[in-house]
């Protein structure tokens, strides 16, 4: 699954073609047949200009770069990686990084000077793509060039522009693609993240570790490589491949124990779209978890990448107390601590929490979380032995 610049459509490669689907209802908007035979695609990525595919081979992987031209999916690059003495290639997922900005003024045909909003994101030597053009007479045209120099407001290309481009037209550059490989160079006991030059396909760096093995879903978003591992969405810094942050995602099955498969992810406008084969939900009617299985079809479930209330942890200390006794005999109470965290486990302060219980009393019944994301209360017991439930709700 991949997106595009609009966040209105999702794309999937299937049966030798690229399907463009309405994000909301799944209707097929367009179908772009490939100009070369396309096998089973395990990962589809969009870098702002091109679509990239990952196919598995008998002893390796095939990475291809495609461009939609006049309704056809045209192959632009092909990189084949076959297992050798150094490394066994075996992967299901990859992602392609990119930087982009827009033109700050019209860039005219024949000129090598490209005025951009932000030139700091580019390096001399980067291969950039301008377009598609919206300038009258050059609609949808693209231009590829290599940066030979730059200053604060312009980049200068090695070849003059073949077309004219409007203010606001995009300038894109993909430097690397990253392959989540089951094995690491020189060892099959762990996985690795392999970094390849996006223009030449040459392996330029790698990072080894079991964290990179068996990764099925990854994408590139806001200068970070995102991938799903276990019950986490892990962010890696672009280029360095260093761990940046972790986010909890709810990808447990209806038994709340087994982890569901996530087949692909796309991030756009602070929303993570995860491709799954079922939807798991809490059925308050029967007070249990349930699922809707989509048999052989895949749909997305979405989750926010913006900080929001995710964990409301309620702790009782002690968690077994004495029943309320007759007057004059000491009874037992329990200290209740409520901890409110976001999905990155950052404590959330200033959140109003309401408390309730199905038996006995809890005091106070409302509070505002402190800088540790905590409020405390006291539970006063019941007169009969039983299991009681204390519920915390964040307003």
């Amino acid at each position, binding site marked *: 699954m991949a997106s595009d610049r609009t966040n209105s459509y999702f794309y999937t490669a299937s049966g030798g073609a690229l399907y463009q689907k309405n994000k909301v209802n799944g209707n097929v908007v367009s179908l772009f047949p490939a100009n070369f035979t396309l096998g089973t695609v395990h990962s589809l990525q969009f870098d702002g200009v091109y679509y990239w595919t990952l196919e598995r081979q008998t002893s390796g992987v095939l990475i291809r770069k495609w461009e939609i031209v006049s309704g056809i999916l045209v192959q632009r690059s092909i990189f084949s990686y076959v297992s050798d003495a150094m490394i066994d290639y075996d992967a299901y997922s990859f992602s392609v990084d990119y930087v982009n900005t827009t033109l700050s003024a019209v860039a005219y045909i024949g000129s090598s000077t490209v005025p951009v909003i932000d030139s700091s994101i580019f390096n001399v030597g980067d291969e950039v793509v301008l377009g598609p053009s919206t300038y009258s007479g050059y609609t949808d045209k693209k231009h590829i060039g290599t940066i030979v120099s730059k200053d604060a407001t312009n980049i200068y290309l090695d070849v003059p522009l073949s077309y004219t481009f409007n203010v606001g037209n995009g300038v894109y550059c993909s430097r690397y693609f990253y392959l989540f490989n089951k094995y690491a160079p020189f060892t099959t006991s762990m996985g690795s993240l392999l970094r390849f030059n996006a223009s030449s396909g040459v392996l330029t760096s790698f990072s080894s570790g079991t964290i990179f093995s068996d990764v099925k879903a990854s994408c590139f978003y806001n200068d970070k490589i995102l991938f799903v591992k276990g019950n986490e969405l892990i962010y890696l810094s672009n280029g360095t491949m260093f761990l940046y942050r972790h986010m909890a995602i709810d990808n447990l099955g209806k*038994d709340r124990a087994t982890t569901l498969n996530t087949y692909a992810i796309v991030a756009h406008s602070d929303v993570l779209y995860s491709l799954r084969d079922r939807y798991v939900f809490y059925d308050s009617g029967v007070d*249990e978890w349930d699922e809707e299985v989509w048999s052989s079809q895949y749909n997305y479930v979405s989750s926010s990448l913006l900080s929001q209330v995710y964990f409301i942890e309620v702790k009782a200390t002690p968690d077994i107390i004495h029943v309320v006794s007759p007057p004059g005999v000491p009874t037992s109470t329990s200290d209740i601590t409520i901890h409110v965290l976001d999905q990155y486990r950052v404590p959330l302060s200033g959140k109003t929490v309401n408390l309730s219980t199905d038996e006995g009393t809890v005091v106070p019944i409302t509070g505002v979380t402190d800088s540790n994301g905590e409020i405390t209360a006291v539970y006063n017991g019941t007169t009969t032995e039983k299991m009681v439930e204390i519920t915390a709700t964040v307003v």
Partner: protein
Amino acid sequence: MASRQNIRFSSPNFTTDGEYFYSLSSSGNALQVKTDDGTTAFSYPCDTTITNTVNSLEYDGVYFWSLENRTGGGFIIRKWAIDAYVCKQIIAFTFTNTAVHTYSANDFAVEHYSLSLKDNIHGSDYTYGQQDINISDTSMLAPGDTLTFVRKGTSTQNRYSSSYVETATVQTVLDTDTVRLTGLMTGDPYGDLKGFRGPSAAFSATEHQPPDLVYVTKALWVLNDNAPSDVTKGAMYKINHKTGANIVQYSGTQYKDIKGATFYTKYVVAGSYPNQYNTTISGNEQYVIFVSGSSVLFFNVYSLEISKSLAINNVKADLTSLWVIYDMTVGGFEPNITLYRLQLGTTYGTPAADESWSSTYSYEKTILRRVVNSIAMTAEPTILPADGVSTSVITAVVRDQYNNVAGSGVHVVWTDDSGGSRVTPTSDTNAFGVAYATYTAGTIEDDIKITATIANGLL
């Protein structure tokens, strides 16, 4: 009725750090962390692939320890730390069968102690640059022990190779609350070049703060299904936690085929929760506790004998069969320690009904604090003439869940159904947990029922 499931783990192992529950999943190859309601709080991918089912997981305050049986015989014990969001294997001990030892185990315990810094009698409340360190309790320490100093409030994921922790080696134990380390302490957890601190550091003498923590792990105790050279018995294997070397074995059928074990130390603490400080061990109460039928047995690692037995309610509705307890862990603060039992179902309600959780594991709880569990009553004599003056001595023996007598001062309220309240209204138990009352006969022949009630069951 909602299910009584809570943490819902997919593997038969778990432990707690007091805040969260942890389980090592071999299928997901990750250390999964959950809150009570089954929400996944964290998930740390392992840097080493585990292929066998992990039967037991323990936490020693710094490291996690796992036990798994090997395909083809023997078992593996692994030590893990959370390092930069990854569950990192520190060391693995593989035990393979020999002519003497047949290794197979479902559970083990990590003998570890959670201590705290004491105010330094050498004129400083801080550790930086010090070699002689005051610790709340040194009774279990010996030269060569590795101490891990942890700044209080440091979360479990930051207790390995972070500036909040420092490890040091004991050179000598100087007295009951001082150890000399092999070198000067250099840790700077607060960034003020003062080091770790005791309960009075920067506080008034009357208003203590929780001191920084000191952890030490002493040994691994494996409940092996086979005794040395005798597969008809089991054995408690004491194993060196640094080298994996076999130290000694204690054989007996009581150690055979055990599932569900952990380590429990009864601490005495100064101050009250949440500011409990100066942790010491009360009367050498340090146990490997393990499940045997519907009891938990307490193996004292100092006296090397089973010195207590605790009744737990893991009996199914048929009153005969038992829920298997796959792993155990303890949590909470003294005196309110809770024993958590990992099960695949539970029995509850009136009348009692079984609820099976198919393949997901959740916990049931047992309180370790002594509570009144039984009151046994006798009357002497049991038959009185209806003369209005004859008396019978009523005796109630009060016992806790360990089947020990309650001790003195338990307040018993006596009632009878004669309509005239002819029994002593109240009395307290003596040191033997026995309370007496006197019943004075009425003038009409009747069967009289006398009831003893204890309102406050905490002991």
